[in-house]
């Protein structure tokens, strides 16, 4: 395990060293820059406003492992641009030494070995320590939660989000926006939102019937007076909820990017005297980049949804974009100097939450334990072990989904398996026990039924093309921010440069080696269907049963997807 001193060298404060005098001035951060613990805690407080950003926690209350992707392809104007830079290229771009804590926290490569040394990340009691230390520097710092908070674990599922609401209330955020929260269903979301002691924001959350805003339930923005600065925080919920998630669960609500309304809101808050405009967004990074180029007057976009962790802000025009990772692995601090209604400079730090280095906040630890206590025995039950690194992130596949697809193929007796390309779900390293909690961390959702149905080869291709276009459409506004649907039992080739309908080829049934026949019918098992009335056992039960039979799982790297055009 690393010492506290080593951790301090990790804290990516290079961007904090820069930007004090304005934009465009950052050189490469030296991630190896020596820092002391005092420096970390003091942050060299800058300007007059501090923002603290957490996002996409996915109900991960406890420390976890989380491997960043090795495949994250950018298309169109975003080809080769961050966050579509991974592994060694990422480290080179940011001047991060191989094997360093920054390597482990921010990039893929040698993950299992580094995880042994550096340990777990995250844990909301550690996050609380960081938030408290920032508040000690700047008592009126704004804490903003980008959403995907009330989803993703055993306890979150069984309490319908209440565990996360209780814990987050303990952190005392100032505002939040939303995505997976809506999969709790309209009624539950409204119940929770109405009782929140902080603002639930979404300029793009509309009434579906009349296509009108819902200012009482989800106001578009909220004003805060901090450090003598009038700050407007505008919320932007995930635009494609009724498409990416089951519309029937929240039929009263409509979303969309609605950048013309975003512009109207920015103009409105500026007219009301906002000196700093912050957008708390769940658009996804590339969508936010495009929105920043179209909407004028936003100073800071706190991005979310696509789970990217960037050690430096990305500048689009006069707007800075912050990417704070996922699963409780990072906290971003952004200090701003706002003078005469203008952002004059900033200092930023992406703080990785090394669980063995940051001391847990005892109050938060007990609050978390309180949520988990009723479920302790179920959570901790060991179902099996893994010989392999189990991870999810990556555009095409990950070993967790390979395992889930194996479970679907064998437990549901299918030819082909499909697992949704979501980006949440922590990792396990070789030698780890697989507990029930671990299985739920990568499968928990309110529509987890594992269906078994017949599909023609032609329809399977339609699905792959449709999902492929949600990722590889060159216009970010047509992307939904997930990854490719994971496939078991079938191989294919994907040309990311082609238009929809032409990306997918060479579809092959692996069990026979034969080409998929468009006219032939195949038995397909999958989960997370957006269709109402989907029937089948819950995916976590399917996976648990499969792992029990395996005892110890081994998932070798697979090459059933050939990607071309990168």
């Amino acid at each position, binding site marked *: 395990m690393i010492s506290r001193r080593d951790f301090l060298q990790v804290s990516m404060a290079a961007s904090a060293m820069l930007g004090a005098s304005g934009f465009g001035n950052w050189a490469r951060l030296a991630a190896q820059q020596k820092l002391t613990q005092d420096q970390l805690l003091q942050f060299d407080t800058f300007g007059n406003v501090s923002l603290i950003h957490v996002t996409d926690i996915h109900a991960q209350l406890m420390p976890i492992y989380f491997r960043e992707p090795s495949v994250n392809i950018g298309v169109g104007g975003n080809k080769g641009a961050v966050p579509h830079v991974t592994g060694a290229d990422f480290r080179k771009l940011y001047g991060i030494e191989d094997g360093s804590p920054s390597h482990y926290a921010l990039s893929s490569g040698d993950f299992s070995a580094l995880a042994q040394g550096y340990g777990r990340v995250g844990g909301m009691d550690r996050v609380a320590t960081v938030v408290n230390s920032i508040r000690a520097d700047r008592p009126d710092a704004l804490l903003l939660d980008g959403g995907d908070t009330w989803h993703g674990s055993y306890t979150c599922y069984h309490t319908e989000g209440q565990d996360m609401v209780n814990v987050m209330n303990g952190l005392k955020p100032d505002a939040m926006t939303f995505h997976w929260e809506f999969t709790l269903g309209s009624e539950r979301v409204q119940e929770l939102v109405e009782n929140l002691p902080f603002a639930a924001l979404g300029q793009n959350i509309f009434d579906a019937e009349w296509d009108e805003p819902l200012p009482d339930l989800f106001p578009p923005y909220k004003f805060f007076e901090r450090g003598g600065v009038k700050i407007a925080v505008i919320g932007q919920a995930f635009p494609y909820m009724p498409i990416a998630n089951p*519309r029937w669960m929240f039929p009263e609500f*409509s*979303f969309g990017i609605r950048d013309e309304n975003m512009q109207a809101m920015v103009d409105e808050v500026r007219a009301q005297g906002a000196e700093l405009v912050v957008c708390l967004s769940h658009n996804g990074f590339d969508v936010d980049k495009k929105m920043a180029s179209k909407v004028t007057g936003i100073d800071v976009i706190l991005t979310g*949804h696509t789970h990217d962790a960037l050690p430096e802000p990305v500048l689009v025009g006069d707007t800075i974009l912050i990417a704070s990772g996922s699963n409780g692995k990072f906290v971003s601090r952004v200090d701003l100097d706002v003078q005469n209604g203008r952002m004059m400079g900033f200092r930023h730090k992406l703080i990785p939450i090394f669980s063995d280095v940051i001391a847990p906040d005892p109050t938060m630890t007990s609050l978390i334990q309180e949520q988990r206590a009723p479920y302790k025995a179920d959570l901790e039950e060991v179902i099996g072990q893994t010989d392999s690194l189990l991870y999810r992130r990556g555009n095409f596949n990950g070993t967790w989904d390979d395992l889930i697809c194996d479970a679907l193929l064998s437990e549901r007796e299918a030819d082909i398996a499909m697992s*949704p390309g*979501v980006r949440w779900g922590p990792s396990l390293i070789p030698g780890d026990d697989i507990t029930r909690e671990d299985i739920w961390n990568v499968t928990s959702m309110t529509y987890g039924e594992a269906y078994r149905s017949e599909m023609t080869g032609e329809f399977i291709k339609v699905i792959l093309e449709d999902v492929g276009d949600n990722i590889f*459409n060159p216009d970010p506004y*047509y992307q939904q*921010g997930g990854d490719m649907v994971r496939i078991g039992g079938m191989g294919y080739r994907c040309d990311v440069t082609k238009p929809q309908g032409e990306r997918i080829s060479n579809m092959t049934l692996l069990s026979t080696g034969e080409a998929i026949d468009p006219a032939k019918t195949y038995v397909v098992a999958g989960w997370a*269907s957006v269709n109402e009335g989907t029937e089948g056992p819950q995916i976590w039960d399917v996976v648990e049963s499969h792992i029990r039979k395996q005892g110890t799982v081994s998932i070798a790297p697979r090459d059933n997807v050939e990607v071309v055009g990168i």
Partner: protein
Amino acid sequence: MNFTRRDTLALGAGATALALLPLRAMAQADPNAEMVGGPDDFLAGADAGTGDLTLTAPEIAENGNTVPISVDAPGAVEIRVYALGNPTPGIATFRFGPLAGAQAASTRVRLAGTQDVQAIAKMADGSYVTAMKTVKVTIGGCGG
């Protein structure tokens, strides 16, 4: 004009929307408008440039059966909307009288699949402006 079921749905939804927006109620979906054919029939050889016409539609439809769209063209006397990929592309004609407070209208349309939606506005001087937007209709799922 022969109303298809699709047209009726679109116009019905539009009428409801208009009823709620009295300031915009000067615009009416004209039941006598000839929506046979496509943009070329409306333009009748004239060119349509880009100009002060805003067509608002979602990038990805939440429900392809009822996609909210709106058009706004200050100074227009007529705006037509076409779903270029539908079997019957003509969706709506909005005519604005001289007392119209705004040359804007909203309705909902049904889209057979991913396609371009085009609006064409005829201005008071007889010139045309056009705006186009691709609306994706997807089978959904898998959002991260």
